């Protein structure tokens, strides 16, 4: 059922202002631009026969098929001092912080019923205010067919109900570190700040 957020997708993308290190950025001073990208964990090896073979790093039997770390490029006007302070504090902490940009992540598992698996990031439920399993529900597909009962998720643990290739679309809290914090004043009373929020994984 369509809801708010980005293009009224069935999932609630960008339906709230992003949360950075416990502060929800204000509507006025929030990001003017967010971009993100990921690098594939899949390694492509060319062979002397002109063909290719693929290799993936082994992360254990409960890991997703591919673990892509995301890197967010964040840019915003410094109109709200508290927003600015939250970003400056996150950069100055020297540790990973929570980042909820309001997007969904996707992970794929080959599951066997009853087995448990690990999401690369925890779901945002209970961590981000206003984000619940109701407002931001899982979207599950088993072997390409939507099956919301194919598995259950708590924290980062996926418990398989069905068996097959399971794709999980969920709203995670990203653990990120603030890189490349850049600040500039291009004209009086017009200060920009930009940074890279690079994801780090714990499982």
């Amino acid at each position: 059922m369509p809801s708010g957020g980005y293009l009224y997708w069935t999932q609630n993308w960008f339906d709230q202002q992003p949360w950075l290190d416990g502060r929800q950025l204000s509507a006025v001073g929030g990001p003017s631009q967010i971009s993100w990208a990921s690098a594939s964990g899949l390694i492509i090896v060319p062979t002397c026969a002109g063909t290719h073979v693929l290799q993936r790093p082994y992360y254990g039997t409960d890991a997703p098929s591919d673990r892509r770390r995301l890197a967010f490029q964040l840019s915003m006007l410094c109109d709200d001092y508290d927003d600015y302070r939250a970003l400056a504090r996150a950069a100055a902490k020297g540790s990973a912080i929570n980042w909820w940009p309001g997007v969904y992540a996707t992970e794929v598992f080959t599951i066997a019923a009853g087995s448990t698996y690990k999401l690369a990031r925890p779901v945002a439920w209970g961590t981000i205010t206003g984000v619940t399993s109701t407002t931001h529900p899982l979207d599950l597909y088993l072997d390409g067919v939507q099956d919301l009962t194919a598995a259950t998720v708590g924290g980062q643990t996926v418990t398989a109900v069905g068996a097959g290739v399971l794709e999980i679309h969920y709203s995670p809290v990203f653990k990120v570190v603030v890189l490349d914090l850049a600040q500039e004043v291009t004209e009086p009373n017009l200060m920009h700040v930009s940074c890279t929020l690079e994801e780090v994984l714990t499982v």
Partner: protein
Amino acid sequence: MADLYCKVAEVTSDAELLAEVFGVEAAKLDSELDAEFTSDAAAEAAARPRDLTPSVVGFELRVDGVALDLADCTGGWSVSRSLDQRLQTWQVEFVLNDEDGPLGNPFDVLGPPTCLKTVDLYGVYLISGATVAVPLIVGGIADMTTRTGSLGGYIESMSGVDRGGRHDRKVVTLVLQPGHGLPRGRVVRELAKEAGETQYLLDDGRLCTKEVQVVDGDWTSVAAELMDTEGRALLWNRDGYLTNPKRGRPVGETSTWELTEADFDASSGVSVSHMADILTDVTLTGWQQIARDGCDREEKTTETEVRTIYAPYRQGYTQTIGGYAATSPGEAAKLRRYSLVVQESESICNTVVFERTRRFGWRNWEVLRYQWDGTDDEWDKLTCYTDENSDGSAPGYSYLDERWSLLERVDTRYYYDRSGFRLDSNRNIYTETSTSSLGGVAPGLWNAPPIDWVAYGRGDGGGNVTDNNFYLGRIIETWQPYRIEGHIKERGQASDPFPDEPDNGSSVYGDGRADGSGVTAWFFQPGAWAALEEGAVSGVSGSTGEGLMLVGVDVQASYDELDGGWVTRDVTDRFRWFRDRTETGLFFYASDGTASNYENEQFEWVTRETTTYTPLDEATHVKQVSTANSVGAVANVVTETGLEGYGPALPRLDLEELSGDGYETGEQDEFARSAARKSTKQIKVQVIATGLETCHTKGVLKTEMPWAEDEDELVEIAERMIADSAAATISATLAGCNYFVEPGQLHRWKFRPIGLDHDIRITSVTWSGSVGGRATCTVEGKVYGW
């Protein structure tokens, strides 16, 4: 460890798993032989991907069997296995989040934090949701850890070796005598056992007869040299077992993996290098152990001959019952053989076990000269040759002239507690009738160790030797010209007087000694005893005169009653011709005026000499020699005190010490026993690869191969050296990370654009990777063309 260990790399049909057990071994294996295997085509697909199905590849580190959390494996890793390195190596890195790191603080233990814990490294595939761990190094040990703090972060890098690192520097003592005959693999195993290693899967290889002498020394270098001679490497395999995989030119082997262009990483490619500077001319030297079957007796003969101007002496008269006739002059003196001494000896492994001395010379042999004629009461003359023409006491001889004769033979046989020292059956003639009245050594020594020796560790109690090599005793036989003494008159009862005249028909020699012929005697019989030199005689034919006969036997035995390797008692029994003149009431009267109850001399035990050695302390002992007479009464005692030393050492056969512990089969044991100990000969071969010299400058090598057994093996080694030298070196990084390849395997590699379609002997493999990065497998090998 398991008695049977086998590994099946790839099963393509049931027939490959068939096993057959022969004969009685089947019963032994009943319910003892259990085998299982897993064959998973998916594992091969993961190791050698050929399509776009990703292989999920990783690495696992276990310390004392506990896998390290993947979250702690934060750096790179590598494992290298190579035929060229005895110890296989590994290295792992961790990012330090705190001073304790994932495994502990090296400052706390002054070394790698894993200390003596086992470090196992596995290659990992994720196959159908399950982890398949392939051992790369099991039972390893860390040898160094390095912590680094830099702009790159805080890193701990730990390196180590395989299980061999726990044993390779131990010093051991193992001595195997020359000719031991253990297979080389067994020798290595014995060395490893001495070092405390309990895991080995060693092919036996060729039998080794070379002396192995490692005394508080490095065992791995000896073991590696042995294996190198065999064309094998010595290393611990990926499962932690000491193994000896083949290296060098493949012969009769099937390839384990066939790889083509699709299996090689194009980024790294495949490189093949051929060298111009190679060996073409190899000269090898060594020493071959000489083996002789059963340590057979070695015979040695020396002859000492004296030639001089001489003429055999001729008697002046021919005596007959009717009188004397002068003889004609004999031949003139001329240069001729005057005397000959032949000394023979037989040895077993350089220990003399038999000696014989024969003396030859000119001699006339005496015969009876007179016989009592009871009718006429006078001495009748008998036919003989003599130098007097009257009824004197000069000897009468059998021959007119001196004859070239065997004058003496002395045989000495030495006995040891060792198989093969029994007297020949045709030489125990006199023991059947002549035994010591005191019992003991004499009768037993001929056929078996005396029973009373058993108490002192000699023999097994059943009259059989026990092969402990100790000296038992010796028998000395002396053969000389001899006349057995008889009697000239006898009486009916002891109370009767002897008659005044000799008995009718009594015969005497020229000196009046009575004839003793008729008694059992042991005249030398050339046919039965030994070949007599051509033209020589050994006495008077028949039994009426002097002949070469057994005149003395000395039987000596040594006892070690303290079982300490020292002689405590020596006993010598002497046997001689004997006529007891001590008793009363005697019946037989000899020509010398003495009486005896012996009709003739008898060959029998006459004395026993006993020497005892009594240690007082470690520095002095008492020696006492006592002599008993023919009835056992001690007739003489000589005591010496304060003699130096604990006592005389009991001689021992200088044979190799064969504990028997090292031999698994009777065949090996017999082989070892039959080998000579120290006899060697130099061997040398030269192998020239003329075909290679048409394209290469001559490459010469001259060296020694101390463990080569014979020239054939030297040739094999030389050929192997040349082949190794001329082999191309090939290296490649595989597209997939194949944890199943390993050094020693034979592969078939095909990469047609560079002309490669050859068998490859894999020499080294390195697996490496990093967290989140690619796991690679780099392989090196040799391509043999010569």
